[in-house]
C-alpha cells in the first residue's frame, strides 16, 4: 500500500526505489558470499562411467548424524565411508548393479538406534551416470520399528535420479508441506481442526495470489514467476531473522519491501519495454516462465535444497474450543486479514483504486479519461510483488519453513484459486483461495496427504468444465 501511495510522488518513489535497490543488492551479495559455505560439498559426480551412492543417516529429532561408518558392497569390491556434518556419505562406484549398503550400528550417535533395523544391509540398485540414494533414520531406543513412520528410502530424495547430462532438474522436495495445524494434538476435533487449517491456509493463499490476479486484471498476463516472488519473500525473511538477527516484524517489512522493489524492477526492466514494443501477451507469458526457471535455480544456488525455517523452535499452541492454533499462525492470519482488508478498501474507495479498476476494465478507455495507464500498471506490479512476498513470509510461518521451491509448489494452487474465483476479479481470488484452502485440508480425510495438492488441481479442472468464468468472474472474459 505504501508503494501505491508513492505513485503520485514519482520522484520520491524513484529515490526510495534506488535506496531499496541498494539494500537488495547488499542482501544478494551477502547471500552470495555466504552461500558457498552453506552448500554441501559433493565429493562425487555421476558421469557416463561412474555412479554415486549417496547414503544419508539422519534423525527426525536431532537432524543429520555425522561420523557414522557405512559399508558399500558389490561390483566386486567393498568400500567404507563416513558421514559428514550433513549426515551424508557419497561413494563413487564404476559398475552398475545391486549394491548392499550396511550401516555400522556401533558408530551411530550415542543414544540412538536405527529406526528400522531390518532395513539395514539395504540393497540399492545402481545405474551408471546417476545417483542412487538411501536414507537411514535413527531414533532414540524404544522408538524403532519399521511401521512407525515413513520407511527409510521411501522418503523424498531416497532415490534421486539425475542423469549424467542433467536431464532434469530434480527437486527432491517434500512437497506435501505438512502444516502445523493439520495434525494437532489431543483435545481437538479432527474435522473442526481441518476446517480451521483450511481457512487459515486459504486466507494466506489469498494474500499470496491476490497480486497475480491484479496483474492478470490490468495486463492480461498470467505470471508464472509469481511463485518465485513468494519464495523471495520467505527467503528474505529467513535471511533477515536468521542471518541478520532482525526481529520478526522488521523481517516481514523488509521482505515485503524487497518484493515490491523486485516487482518494480521486473516491470521497469522487462515488462514495460515489452509492452511498449507491442510484444504479445503469450510471449510475455513465456518470458515469465523463463523468469520462473531462472529464479527457481537461483534460489537453489543461493540457499541449497534444505528447508529454511524463519523462526526456529515451535511456538506455543493456543486452545480455542475444539481446535488448536499456533501463535505463529494466528499472527500470520491477523496480518493477512488486515492487509487484505486494506487492499479491498483501497480498490473500492480511493481514487487510485478506482483508476486501477478502470484500467483493468478497459485500458484504452481509461487512458482516454486521463488515467496514466502505465503508472497504474507499474504500481500494480509493485503491490502485486509486495503482496506475494508478504504472503510468502506468512505462509512460511504457517508451514514452519521455507525452501527454494516453496513458491513454485504453491504456484498452481494460486492459479487454481484465481481461476476458481474468476480471473481478474480481486475479491474472487480471495473466495477462490479460501475454497482451495478448505479443499486441500479436507481432502486429507479421504486421500493420502501427499495427494492433497492434486485434489485442488482437480477442482480447478472441474471448475473450468462447469463454470469457466469462475465464481465471481464475468462470462465475457473467457471467450
Amino acid at each position, binding site marked *: 500500500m505504501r508503494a501505491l501511495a508513492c505513485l503520485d510522488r514519482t520522484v520520491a518513489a524513484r529515490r526510495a526505489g534506488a535506496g531499496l535497490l541498494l539494500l537488495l543488492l547488499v542482501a544478494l551479495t551477502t547471500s552470495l558470499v555466504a552461500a558457498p559455505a552453506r552448500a554441501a560439498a559433493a565429493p562425487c559426480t555421476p558421469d557416463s562411467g561412474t555412479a554415486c551412492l549417496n547414503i544419508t543417516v539422519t534423525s527426525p529429532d536431532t537432524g543429520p548424524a555425522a561420523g557414522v561408518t557405512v559399508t558399500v558392497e558389490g561390483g566386486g569390491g567393498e568400500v567404507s565411508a563416513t558421514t559428514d556434518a550433513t549426515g551424508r556419505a557419497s561413494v563413487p562406484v564404476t559398475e552398475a548393479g545391486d549394491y548392499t549398503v550396511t550401516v555400522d550400528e556401533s558408530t551411530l550417535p550415542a543414544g540412538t538406534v536405527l529406526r528400522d533395523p531390518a532395513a539395514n544391509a539395504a540393497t540399492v540398485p545402481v545405474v551408471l551416470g546417476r545417483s542412487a540414494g538411501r536414507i537411514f533414520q535413527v531414533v532414540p531406543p524404544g522408538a524403532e520399528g519399521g511401521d512407525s513412520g515413513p520407511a527409510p528410502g521411501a522418503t523424498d530424495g531416497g532415490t534421486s535420479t539425475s542423469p549424467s547430462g542433467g536431464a*532434469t532438474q530434480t527437486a527432491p522436495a517434500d512437497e506435501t508441506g505438512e502444516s502445523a495445524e493439520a495434525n494437532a494434538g489431543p483435545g481437538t476435533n479432527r474435522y473442526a481442526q481441518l476446517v480451521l487449517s483450511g481457512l487459515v491456509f486459504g486466507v494466506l493463499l489469498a494474500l499470496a495470489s491476490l497480486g497475480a490476479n491484479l496483474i492478470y486484471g490490468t495486463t492480461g498476463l498470467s505470471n508464472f514467476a509469481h511463485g518465485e516472488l513468494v519464495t523471495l519473500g520467505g527467503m528474505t525473511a529467513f535471511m533477515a531473522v536468521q542471518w541478520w538477527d532482525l526481529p520478526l516484524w522488521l523481517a516481514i517489512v523488509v521482505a515485503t519491501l524487497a518484493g515490491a522493489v523486485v516487482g518494480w524492477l521486473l516491470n521497469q526492466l522487462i515488462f514495460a519495454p515489452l509492452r511498449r514494443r507491442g510484444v504479445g501477451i503469450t510471449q510475455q507469458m513465456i518470458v515469465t516462465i523463463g523468469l520462473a526457471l531462472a529464479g527457481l535455480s537461483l534460489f537453489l544456488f543461493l540457499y541449497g535444497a534444505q528447508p529454511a525455517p524463519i523462526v526456529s523452535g515451535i511456538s506455543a499452541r493456543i486452545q480455542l474450543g475444539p481446535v488448536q492454533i499456533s501463535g505463529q499462525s494466528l499472527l500470520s492470519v491477523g496480518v493477512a486479514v488486515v492487509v487484505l482488508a486494506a487492499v479491498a478498501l483501497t480498490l473500492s474507495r480511493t481514487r487510485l483504486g478506482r483508476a486501477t479498476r478502470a484500467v483493468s476494465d478497459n485500458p484504452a478507455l481509461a487512458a482516454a479519461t486521463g488515467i496514466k495507464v502505465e503508472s497504474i500498471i507499474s504500481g500494480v506490479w509493485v503491490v502485486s510483488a509486495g503482496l506475494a512476498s508478504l504472503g510468502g513470509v506468512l505462509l512460511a510461518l504457517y508451514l514452519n519453513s521455507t525452501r527454494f521451491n516453496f513458491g513454485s509448489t504453491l504456484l498452481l494452487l494460486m492459479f487454481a484459486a484465481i481461476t476458481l474465483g474468476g480471473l481478474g476479479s480481486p475479491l474472487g481470488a480471495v473466495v477462490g483461495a479460501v475454497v482451495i484452502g478448505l479443499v486441500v485440508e479436507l481432502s486429507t480425510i479421504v486421500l493420502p496427504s501427499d495427494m492433497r495438492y492434486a485434489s485442488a488441481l482437480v477442482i480447478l479442472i472441474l471448475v473450468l468444465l462447469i463454470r469457466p468464468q469462475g465464481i465471481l468472474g464475468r462470462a465475457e472474459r*473467457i471467450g
Partner: protein
Amino acid sequence: MDFGQLLTNVLTEMTGPTAIAYALAAIGLNIHFGLTGLINMGQAGFMLLGAYGFAVSTIAGAPLWLAFLVAIGAAVVFALILGLPTLKLRGDYLAIVTIAAAEIVRMVGRSTALTEITGGSEGLTGNSFKSTFQDASPLPDDRWALGPVTLATNASNSWWLRIVGWTLVLLACLFVWRLVRSPWGRVLRGIREDEDAVRALGKNVYSYKLQALVLGGVFGALGGVVFVLASSVQADSLGRPVTFNTWTILLLGGAATVLGPVLGSLLFWGALVFVRGFLRGAVPADVLSVQQVEQIGWVLVGITLILLIVFRPQGILGDKKELAINAR
C-alpha cells in the same frame, strides 16, 4: 582442463537418449503450438504418462509392441480429457489446465498410495522394464566405439536405444513435413492464424484442435518412453521443468518448422553440457560446488528463454512472418 573429454561428453549428450526424448517431445509441442497455436504447458505430463504406460504394462508382462501401444493410448486418453473441456475456451485456460493436469499426473504417480504400481517417489527401476526392449535388439552384447564415443550396444544408454530413438525422430520429422503440406495441416495453420476465418469456411475448429492435441501428445509419450529407457521411471524427473525445457528447445530451434525441434534439442543439450563441463573445469570446486554449477546451467536456460522470446521469437530456423504468437 581436458577439452577432448569435454567435447566427447558434449557429443555423447547431444546424440544421447535425453536429446532424443526432448526432440520427440518438442516435435509434439510443435504440432500443438507451432502448427495449431495451442499453448500446452503440460508436455511433461504426456511424457510421464507414456513412460508409466510403457513401464507398468511391461512389468505386467505385456510384449514390446503392446507396451508401446499402451503408452500411446495413455497419451490419447489424457489429451481427450484435457482437450474436451478446454479447447473451446481462450488459450491461457488450456495453459493452466495442462500444467495443472501434468502436476496431477506427477503427484498421483509419486503418491505413496500407488507404490505397488508406480513405485511411489522412488519410481520404477530401469531393470524392471527394459528387458523386452533390449531383447529386441539385433546387436550382440558388447561395447562399441564410434570415434571418441564408447557405449554399450544394448544396456540402458546404448547404441541400440540411439538407433531406435533417432529413427523415431526421423520418422516424426517426415510425418510433420508431410503434415504441414497436407490439407489437414493447412487447416491447422489456418486455426493458428485466424480461428474465426477457418470457422467461417465451415471447418470444425474444435475437432481439429482436439486432433492436434492428441497427435502432439502421442509424440510426447514416445519421448517419455525413450527418456525412461535410458534410466528409470521417476515422477519427479518428468516435472514442470521438463515442460519448460521443451518450450525453450522448441523456441530455440524455431516453432512451426520441421527440423527446428531437433536442432533445438541438439543445441540445448550440447550447450548445457558444455557450459557445465567448462565451469567445472575452469572454476575450482571450492568456489562453486558441482551442484551449483548445475544450477547456474539452469539459470542460463531461463535467461536464454527470456532473451529468445524478446529478441528472436522465431528461433534459429523460423520465419517471423510464419509465426505470430497469439493466444486464443
